[in-house]
C-alpha cells in the first residue's frame, strides 16, 4: 500500500484537484482501495459505499472541469452511521437498525452532496452513540490506529480512527457528551462540536435531543472551518437550528493571539488524571502564551463536579423517550413470534438493543418515573442552569477556556468494558460543554508512549471563530496534527 496521499488535507486535496494533477475518481479509487486493505485491522467502517462514491466522484470531476467546484468538491469523506443517506443502510451500529434503509437524506448529507462531496463509507460507532470506545457497537470494535490493542474513543470512534488511518480525508461525527472530541483526542485528529443549533440535526438519529450536535473530524483546523462553512445554518426541517448568520469560518485564521484572554479552569485538571496528559496540555497552554494570548491559570468553575451526574440523568432521560419509537411496527428489528402487541414491543426492545442502550433506557425511565422526577430529572435541569451560568460568567472575562480533552491516553480494549461508571468518567472534561450548549474543539497536543493527547478549547455560544483562531495559531507552531500512525 502506498502512502502517496495519506498526508492530504481537504485544502491540499482541493489544490491537487484544481490543478488537474489528480481526478476525483482517481483519488476516490485510492481511498476505497486503502479502506479495503487497512480497514481489516482498524475496522472503522460499517458500510463501504463504493458505488455511491464513484458516482459522486464522476459528478465532482465534471464540476471541477466546469469551474463550479468548492473546497469540498471531489474530496472523500466518512459519515458516522447515525446520519441518514437516502438508499444507503444506516445502522447506528445497532441490531435494531441493521437493515434500515433511510428514504431521505440528513440535511448535512444534502449539504455535502450540493458541495460535491464524495462519501466513501459509513463509520462505526457505539450503538446509538452511547459509549466512549466503540465497544458498544453491535457489530465490532474499532481499533486505535496508533495502537491496535487500544480503543479509538467514542462514540464517533470510527470517524476519528478513519481520519487518523487516512481511510478518508475527513469525517462527520456527532457529539452528545464528547463523542466527537474524545475520539478526536484519542486518535490525534481535529474534532469540533459546534454550538447547539449551529448545524441541523434533521436526519441524525436522535439520542439526547437537547445535547446532540453534528460536527467535523479533520486533519487540521483549516479543514474544520471549511467543513463548517458548508454544513452550518438554519434548517426549516430542524426547529432547534438557529437563525444565526454563518460567517466565513476561515476568515480569522491568522496565527495571531495578541489580546486574546484565555482562562484555565482548575477543576478540569482532575484527580486521577494521567501526569503525561497534565504535562502535555500545560506545555501546549504555554505555547498559546508565547503566541500572545493572556493566560490566566486557576480559574474556578465549581459546578464542574456536578456535570457527570447532570449529564447521566438528562441524556438517558431524553434517550428513553427518543428510543421508545423502536417498537417494531414501522421499521427496524421486529420480534414476530407473538400475536400479542405488548409482548411484541417488549421483546423487540430486549432483543434489538445492546446492554448499554438498555442500561440508559432503564436509567432514563427511572429518572422520569413518578416519585423520582423531582429528585433526579428536575434537579438535574436546575443544576444545568447553574452550569450554564458559571460558563457565562467565565466568558465575561475570557474569550476561551482551555482544558485537556480527556483525563487519560487511549485505554486498552476491554479495560473498562464491564464498568459503566469508569467508562462514563472518560468524558468528564467534555460533558459540561454539551450541558451548556457551547462550542468546543479538540486538537492534537502531543503524545505519551506514542499515544495521542488532546487539548480542548471551549468558546462562547456561536464563537466557533474564536476557538478556530486559537487552535489554528497553535497548529501553525506545532506539528502534532501532521503526524500519522504507521499501519
Amino acid at each position, binding site marked *: 500500500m502506498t502512502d502517496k496521499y495519506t498526508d492530504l488535507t481537504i485544502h491540499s486535496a482541493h489544490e491537487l484537484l484544481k490543478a488537474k494533477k489528480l481526478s476525483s475518481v482517481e483519488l476516490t479509487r485510492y481511498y476505497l482501495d486503502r479502506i479495503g486493505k487497512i480497514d481489516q485491522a482498524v475496522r472503522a467502517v460499517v458500510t463501504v459505499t463504493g458505488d455511491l462514491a464513484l458516482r459522486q466522484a464522476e459528478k465532482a470531476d465534471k464540476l471541477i472541469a466546469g469551474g463550479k467546484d468548492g473546497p469540498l468538491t471531489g474530496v472523500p469523506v466518512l459519515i458516522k452511521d447515525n446520519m441518514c443517506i437516502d438508499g444507503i443502510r444506516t445502522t447506528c451500529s445497532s441490531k435494531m437498525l441493521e437493515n434500515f434503509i433511510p428514504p431521505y437524506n440528513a440535511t448535512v448529507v444534502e449539504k455535502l452532496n450540493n458541495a460535491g462531496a464524495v462519501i466513501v463509507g459509513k463509520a462505526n460507532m457505539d450503538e446509538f452513540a452511547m459509549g466512549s470506545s466503540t465497544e458498544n457497537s453491535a457489530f465490532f470494535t474499532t481499533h486505535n490506529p496508533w495502537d491496535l490493542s487500544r480503543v479509538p474513543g467514542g462514540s464517533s470512534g470510527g470517524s476519528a480512527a478513519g481520519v487518523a488511518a487516512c481511510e478518508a480525508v475527513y469525517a462527520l461525527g456527532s457529539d452528545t457528551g464528547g463523542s466527537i472530541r474524545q475520539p478526536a483526542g484519542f486518535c490525534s485528529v481535529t474534532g469540533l462540536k459546534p454550538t447547539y443549533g449551529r448545524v441541523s440535526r434533521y436526519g441524525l438519529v436522535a439520542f439526547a435531543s437537547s445535547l446532540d450536535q453534528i460536527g467535523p473530524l479533520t486533519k487540521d483546523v483549516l479543514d474544520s472551518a471549511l467543513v463548517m462553512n458548508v454544513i452550518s445554518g438554519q434548517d426549516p426541517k430542524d426547529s432547534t437550528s*438557529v437563525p444565526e448568520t454563518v460567517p466565513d469560518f476561515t476568515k480569522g485564521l491568522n496565527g495571531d493571539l495578541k489580546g486574546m484572554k484565555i482562562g484555565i479552569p482548575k477543576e478540569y485538571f482532575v484527580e486521577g488524571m494521567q501526569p503525561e496528559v497534565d504535562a502535555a496540555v500545560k506545555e501546549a497552554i504555554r505555547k498559546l502564551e508565547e503566541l500572545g494570548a493572556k493566560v490566566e491559570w486557576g480559574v474556578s468553575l465549581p459546578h464542574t463536579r456536578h456535570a457527570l451526574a*447532570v449529564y447521566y440523568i438528562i441524556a438517558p432521560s431524553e434517550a428513553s423517550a427518543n428510543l421508545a419509537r423502536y417498537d*417494531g*411496527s414501522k421499521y427496524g428489528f421486529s420480534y414476530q413470534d407473538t400475536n400479542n402487541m405488548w409482548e*411484541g414491543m417488549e421483546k423487540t426492545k*430486549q432483543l434489538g438493543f445492546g446492554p448499554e442502550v438498555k442500561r440508559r433506557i432503564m436509567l432514563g425511565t427511572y429518572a422520569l418515573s413518578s416519585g423520582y422526577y423531582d429528585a433526579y430529572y428536575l*434537579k438535574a435541569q*436546575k443544576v444545568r442552569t447553574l452550569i450554564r451560568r458559571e460558563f457565562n460568567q467565565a466568558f465575561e472575562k475570557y474569550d476561551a477556556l482551555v482544558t485537556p480533552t480527556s483525563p487519560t491516553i487511549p485505554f486498552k480494549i476491554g479495560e473498562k468494558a464491564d464498568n*459503566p461508571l469508569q467508562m462514563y468518567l472518560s468524558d468528564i472534561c467534555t460533558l459540561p460543554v454539551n450541558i451548556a450548549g457551547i462550542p468546543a474543539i479538540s486538537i492534537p497536543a502531543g503524545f505519551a508512549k506514542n499515544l495521542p493527547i488532546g487539548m480542548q478549547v471551549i468558546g462562547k455560544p456561536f464563537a466557533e471563530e474564536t476557538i478556530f483562531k486559537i487552535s489554528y495559531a497553535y497548529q501553525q507552531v506545532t506539528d502534532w496534527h501532521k503526524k500519522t500512525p504507521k499501519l
Partner: protein
Amino acid sequence: MKLSREEVVHIAALARMSMSEAEIEKAREQLAVILENFEILKEVDTTNVPPTAQSINLQSVMREDIPGESLPAEKVLANAPDREGDLFKLRPVLE
C-alpha cells in the same frame, strides 16, 4: 445497596422492555451504583433556580404550513416489518 427486584421489573415495564432474569440481576447492581453517584446533586442549593430544558433561546418556532411533496409510500414501506398494500400491518391493539 442494590435496587429491589420489584423496582427493576417496574421500570422495565414502564419502558415496555422485557428483561431476562440475568439482566434484572445485573441491573439491580449497576443501576444502584450509578444512582448512588447522582447523590452528589443533593449538595447543590437550587432554591429559586429555574430548570433548563435546552440551551438556545428559541421558543415556539412556527412556520407557514405549505403543502409539499411527501416521501414516496413505497420507499417508506420498504422498511416495514409487515404491510398490507400501502399500510403498515400491526398486531391487534384491541381484542
